[in-house]
């Protein structure tokens, strides 16, 4: 367009010049040249208007700056995105809307380009942040353009696209994907465990029988008299091997839903069973076990084996916690009571062990979270899943160096229909 204008102007000037030199020349030629010029200006105006409309109505922010980095033009969208009226921005340095940490980089690459003509960044669709009038940082995608004026100066344009929504979607997707991957991992582990169950049960079988056989041999021998704990230890080997296989078994039942068997149960039953299983370990680690079972509690509808597994898990964690601590106070307390306000049975497992850091408390139920160097970290996550499946809750309080208390709440009177 510009060259067309140049030609038209040049043509008009020639026409005027010629006419002035040669008064006998046909005036119509001059008239024609002037009309051409008018038409050209008209078209130019139209074109300029067209671009102006585009710039004005674009939802992206359009800015143009000169070589000194001063904003020459800002479209109305600038106020929508940045809360600056266009005339507030014009005449200000572009750095006004840049965050501090980007200014140096901008200076470097801007000057580099002006001096060498080399682009150090992509001019199409890079993600940066701009500063809202309030100071808030807004993520945008920027594309640059450049023109050279007839005088030889550069004008740079920037198109800023608000990508906050896109970033939210991206974040959401990322979270979903992570959740899915996590679920997949858990499921895969569950399936792995399922496949391994049979394989694991073979050596566990051997271990259990061998420990029992050894216990039998040693029981009435001088060794047992000199070291009675050997018998306990062997008993615990057997007990732990059975426990190991039950853990795997219940991993499976968690993954393949619908295998749990709910029945009306006196809560003391699975608790007593769990206590029995862990009693050997408690004796051998000299931990005192205190039980306070409130009598005549209402029954709950639960999967007995699953609840037993949860309590066993908590008891074993309690033992581990006490073993990790230096305290002389080695006690685990298991209590049951009824809370009429929430119509639930409350079971608490308290230990006087090493405690849990308050920053870790929120994470302990995460799958794969463990503080044990060889732990798989599946225990508490599964416990939580089981309790939630029973429409109950599980919570924890803890003080480092003092102890920890887990509280399980199980609603009473749940039927199969719920």
């Amino acid at each position: 367009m510009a060259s067309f204008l140049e030609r038209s102007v040049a043509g008009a000037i020639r026409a005027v010049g010629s006419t002035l030199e040669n008064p006998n020349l046909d005036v119509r030629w001059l008239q024609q040249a002037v009309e051409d010029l008018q038409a050209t200006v008209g078209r130019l105006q139209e074109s300029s208007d067209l671009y102006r409309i585009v710039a004005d109505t674009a939802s992206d922010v359009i800015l143009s700056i000169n070589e000194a980095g001063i904003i020459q033009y800002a479209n109305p969208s600038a106020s929508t995105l940045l809360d600056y009226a266009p005339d507030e921005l014009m005449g200000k340095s572009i750095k006004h809307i840049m965050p501090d940490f980007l200014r140096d980089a901008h200076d470097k690459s801007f000057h580099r380009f002006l001096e060498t003509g080399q682009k150090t960044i992509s001019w199409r669709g890079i993600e940066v942040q701009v500063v809202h009038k309030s100071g808030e940082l807004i993520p945008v995608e920027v594309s640059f353009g450049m023109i050279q004026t007839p005088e030889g100066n550069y004008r740079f344009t920037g198109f800023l696209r608000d990508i906050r929504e896109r970033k939210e979607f991206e974040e959401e997707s990322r979270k979903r994907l992570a959740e899915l991957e996590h679920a997949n991992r858990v499921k895969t582990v569950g399936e792995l465990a399922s496949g391994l169950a049979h394989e694991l049960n073979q050596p566990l079988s051997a271990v259990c029988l061998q420990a029992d056989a050894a216990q039998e041999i040693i029981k009435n021998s001088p060794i047992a008299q000199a070291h009675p704990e050997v018998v306990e230890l062997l008993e615990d080997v057997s007990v732990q091997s059975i426990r190991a296989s039950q853990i795997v078994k219940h991993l499976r039942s968690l993954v393949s839903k619908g295998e749990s068997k709910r029945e009306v149960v006196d809560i003391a039953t699975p608790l007593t069973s769990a206590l029995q299983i862990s009693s050997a370990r408690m004796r051998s680690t000299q931990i005192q076990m205190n039980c306070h079972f409130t009598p005549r509690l209402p029954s709950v509808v639960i999967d007995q084996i699953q609840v037993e597994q949860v309590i066993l898990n908590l008891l074993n964690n309690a033992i581990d916690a006490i073993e990790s601590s230096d305290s002389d106070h080695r006690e685990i307390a298991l209590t049951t009571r009824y809370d009429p306000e929430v119509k639930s049975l409350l079971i608490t497992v308290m230990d006087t062990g090493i405690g849990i850091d308050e920053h870790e408390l929120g994470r302990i139920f995460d799958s794969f979270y463990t503080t044990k160097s060889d732990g798989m970290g599946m225990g508490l996550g599964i416990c939580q899943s089981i309790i939630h499946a029973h429409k109950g809750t599980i919570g924890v309080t803890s003080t480092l160096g003092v102890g920890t208390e887990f509280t399980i709440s199980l609603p009473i009177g749940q039927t199969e229909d719920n």
Partner: protein
Amino acid sequence: MSNAVINVIDDDPAVSQAITIVAKSQGYRVAAYHTAEDFLYGHDPERPGCILLDVKMPGLSGLELQQMLVDAGIRLPVIVMSGHSDVPMAVEAMSRGAVTFLEKPFRMNVLKEQIEKAVKLDEELRTSWFATRTANEAMKRLTDKEREVLDFIMQEKTNREIAEHLNLTLRAVEDRRSRLMKKLGVETIIGLAELVYRSNSIH
């Protein structure tokens, strides 16, 4: 030491060895096989005892073997074991006549109990089988006429009634009666009834 042989059929050597140790400590002889085929070809059918069988084994599966045993008329009591804790599998094993289904891992005292139970069951079955065979052979020694009288005795008829029915003298009935009791080797009516019951039992 008992004459019974505990047959352990399990392809896991550690498990097999552990079970062997336990059964030996109970005073039994033990024969261990890695596969079901090994057992079929290698076992001594005359020896009393029982079978401990793992269901998931390469080649012939434990359940298939169990069926084959039933088909072959091998009546050794079978304890089925599995590392799989599969309810349908357990049900199937029991319906094929397993003495019990043991989920691996299991404690030694559980194993010992079940072995005792199985061996005892085997003894009872054998005793019962012998008793039946003996009774049958004894019954075969009776003549038709003696048989007639026996049938009436079993219907709780008095000698007098029997004499009427068979058109015999009372004396003749009494004679036949004492002869058949002697042949059958019983001295009382109860002994007689037991033997007749034995011989009628299906085995």
